[in-house]
């Protein structure tokens, strides 16, 4: 077993609705709390996943729907791997880009948050069926002297 705690594949499925995000966050926090991740790290991961789900709801499904989102979580040593799957029409991968933090305007922050909070982020189209896939890896940062 690695430092991140137990290593099991967890799978969550929920509808692509804004009102479902609260429960998603609660479940992810509960799963990650069983690992040895710090509370601050769990909050960062939950924020990144929330942003990714928001993007699926708003941009892939184009609004609330009862269509599915599937989230797989796999702690593995000092890393946690995430896979988010939807059944929406393929997104234009070239259009997935956040705005610069220096631009003071609403919108475009979600993709930047994900890029800041996760160490590896890959968007792709699903090959086994219609839809999109987002794979993200969170890695524990080396402890600094004051930690």
């Amino acid at each position: 077993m690695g430092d991140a705690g137990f290593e099991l594949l967890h799978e969550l499925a929920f509808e692509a609705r804004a009102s479902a995000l609260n429960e998603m966050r609660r479940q992810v926090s509960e799963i990650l709390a069983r690992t040895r991740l710090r509370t601050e790290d769990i909050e960062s991961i939950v924020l990144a996943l929330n942003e990714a789900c928001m993007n699926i709801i708003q941009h892939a499904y184009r609004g609330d729907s009862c269509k599915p989102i599937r989230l797989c979580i796999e702690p593995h040593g000092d890393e946690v791997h995430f896979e988010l799957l939807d059944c929406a029409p393929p997104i234009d991968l070239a259009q997935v880009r956040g705005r610069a933090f220096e631009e003071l305007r609403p919108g475009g922050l979600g993709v930047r948050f994900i890029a800041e909070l996760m160490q590896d982020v890959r968007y792709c189209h699903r090959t086994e069926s219609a839809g999109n896939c987002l794979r993200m890896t969170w890695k524990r940062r080396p402890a600094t002297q004051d930690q």
Partner: protein
Amino acid sequence: MDIIIHQHPGISIAALRGEVDLSTSACARSAILDCLIAGTPLLVDLSEVTYIDSSGIASLVEGFRMARDKQLTFGLLAVSEPVLRVLQLARLDQVFPMYADLDAYQASR
């Protein structure tokens, strides 16, 4: 999420409580912009906000921009730790005027 608007001499305070996310940020946005459209200087009390995502941050940015355009005061009051971490992540902690409490705001005038 709950929103309570308090009127003080010369300024309104919009106190948000709970989680500001995709399902609630539209209400926060409306409350903030309504105060500013009415020409009221505004502080947003975030002391009891337990979670905020980019949609909530976008509501604050919209308020900040509208206040700037209308030359009205806009600031954040008693920012909770979870909100502060997201503001820092968005590099906005140096953009929004932030005050520990109403006394600190009034002392800054």
